[in-house]
């Protein structure tokens, strides 16, 4: 059997300097080429899981392990995780005034290449790469000239995230509530962008609390998340069932 892209084993996480435990024993295995969805109500710890995977500071792992292609993910810094092939599409992409989008994209791509011991991209190659990816996501050139995420609409921000994902060609994509703030048209563009990146060597973890996104990005497995852990796993049908019955059926509390 080949090594899974991601293995989360009994992961317990609390907020640093607080007693509040957020993740309470997450187990999840994501094989190469598969798309898994994590569904759960607000506050169930879904976003915390995505931050912990991406290496955000301020969390403390109290128990458990995360393996990324067999390597200990939690030992790596956020930048090293990115260079190793992990990508988090943010629920709320950060606006950074004063940093031009193109400057940022070039810095990010070249930093990853440098960490991996690869040569820097030549400017014309970089420009072409960005232009092609942007066209596919219906991102106009004006948007790329603006400071990173500044003045972008909700939909533009999400498209910019998927653009970055397309450029970085990660092995693992973690999509945190990518559907939030999107209208139907934007949802379609973003989903098409994501589906275009589906590949036998690439896995995706799609975090959402609506079934709707999964009509566009059809998952291989669905995990129901409640109170900091996975309480139920199943195939695509589980999402539909969840939509029909509500979360209460699965976590034993009223909605």
């Amino acid at each position, binding site marked *: 059997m080949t090594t899974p892209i991601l293995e989360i084993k009994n992961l317990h996480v609390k907020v640093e300097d607080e007693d509040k435990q957020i993740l309470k024993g997450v187990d999840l295995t994501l094989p190469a080429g598969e798309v898994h969805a994590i569904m759960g109500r607000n506050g169930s710890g879904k976003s915390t899981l995505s931050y912990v995977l991406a290496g955000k500071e301020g969390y403390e792992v109290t128990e458990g392990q995360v393996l990324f292609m067999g390597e200990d993910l939690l030992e790596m810094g956020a*930048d090293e995780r*990115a260079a190793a092939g992990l990508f988090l599409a*943010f629920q709320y992409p*950060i606006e950074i005034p*004063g*940093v031009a989008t193109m400057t940022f994209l070039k810095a990010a791509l070249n*930093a*990853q290449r440098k960490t991996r011991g690869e040569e820097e991209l030549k400017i014309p190659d970089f420009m072409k790469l960005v232009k092609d990816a942007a066209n596919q996501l219906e991102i106009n050139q004006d948007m790329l000239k603006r400071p990173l995420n500044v003045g972008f609409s909700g939909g533009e921000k999400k498209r910019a995230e998927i653009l970055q994902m397309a450029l970085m060609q990660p092995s693992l994509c973690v999509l945190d509530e990518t559907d939030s703030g999107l209208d139907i048209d934007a949802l379609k563009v973003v989903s098409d962008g994501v589906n275009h990146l589906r590949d036998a060597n690439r896995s995706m973890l799609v975090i959402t609390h609506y079934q709707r996104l999964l009509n566009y990005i059809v998952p291989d497995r669905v995990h129901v998340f409640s109170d900091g852990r996975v309480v139920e796993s199943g195939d695509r049908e589980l999402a539909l069932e969840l939509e029909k019955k509500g979360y209460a059926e699965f976590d034993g509390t009223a909605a």
Partner: protein
Amino acid sequence: MEQHIVKLTDAENQLADLLQAAGAADAKAALTEHGLPHRRIEEYHYTDLRTLLRDVPAELAKANDDLPSEQFNGFSRVVIVNGKLVHADAIDGVEIKSVDVAKKVGDDQIINLMDGFAQSQIEISISKSLNKPIHIAQVHAGADSVAASKLKVTSADGVEATIIETFEGQNDRGLRFADCAMDVAANSNLLHLQLDQNATGARQFVQNCYDLHEKANLRTFVTHANFQLGRTDVKAEFKGEGAHADFAGLTLLMDKQHGDFTLNVNHAVPNTTSTESFKSIVRDRAKAIFQGKIIVAPDAQKTDAQMMSQGLLLSERAEVLVKPELEIFADDVLCAHGATCGELDADALFYLMSRGIPRAEAESMLIKAFLAELFDEIEDEQIHAKLENRVDAWLAATE
């Protein structure tokens, strides 16, 4: 009569002796009576020189004709070494000469020292618009010593000119004073920059006085980065209607450096406008001070003054101290001041790192983003590049 008894520090006694040697008996008497400015004098509250200036060089700077290496391609060049004019390019429409100055004494002991030590005044009169900037290399040469320069720049009606001063020096514990007075004539347009390039242990006191006449336009930009202790005192007076001035400053300090910008902008006549934009980045135990006072005279209606001071703290013990003041005596004015002070945004840092950018590089990107608009107004490519290199060098030195 109330008797002030000040026990002078060794440094004050030393400075008094040097003033005597420089022929400034009145300044010596004032210093002996009052001592150096200290924290109970409001303008020096955050820059207590009785504490900060404990050791001073034992001698006055000697004449020195060594020319420093050129820093700018194609700029006109004037070189002042230890306060004395040693070189001036022939520039069409510009007259440069050195004249004797009468020493005078006032309330501010630092200005008294400045005047007391200066042996001559270098006058630059600009009668025609310049097609290239004038670079004034202000060099403090030789062994550790006390040096002072005095500069007066006058522009004729309607001229455009850029003047860039560099404060250079290798003497590590030097103490230097530089006084610059600019008379910005009606309809003229001047850009005045001062870049400090001292040795790390240098102490520097600068006074810039500007008189702005009708429809004059002035932009100033000063850096505080290369000294142990530095203060730039800006005094601007609007004397003619329709004049505009932008005052900007960049502070980059680390270790135990101490930098002080003190501004006094007087909108004395109606219909004048100004902006004051100062950005400070400090780390380690460095201290950046910004005191900005805007005065709007009773009949100075339609004044618009916008003051902003922003600080970025990169270490827990670094400090940015800000004191903005507005004294408005007219009723139809637009004046505002703002001050921000904070650390690098942790969310922005994580976002950049999550895209594979290592921490140091991500921090640099955010620091440069913080500074971004500060250089926008500087069109000359060589100067722009020099400022950006300065920031890069500072960032590299602290990584």
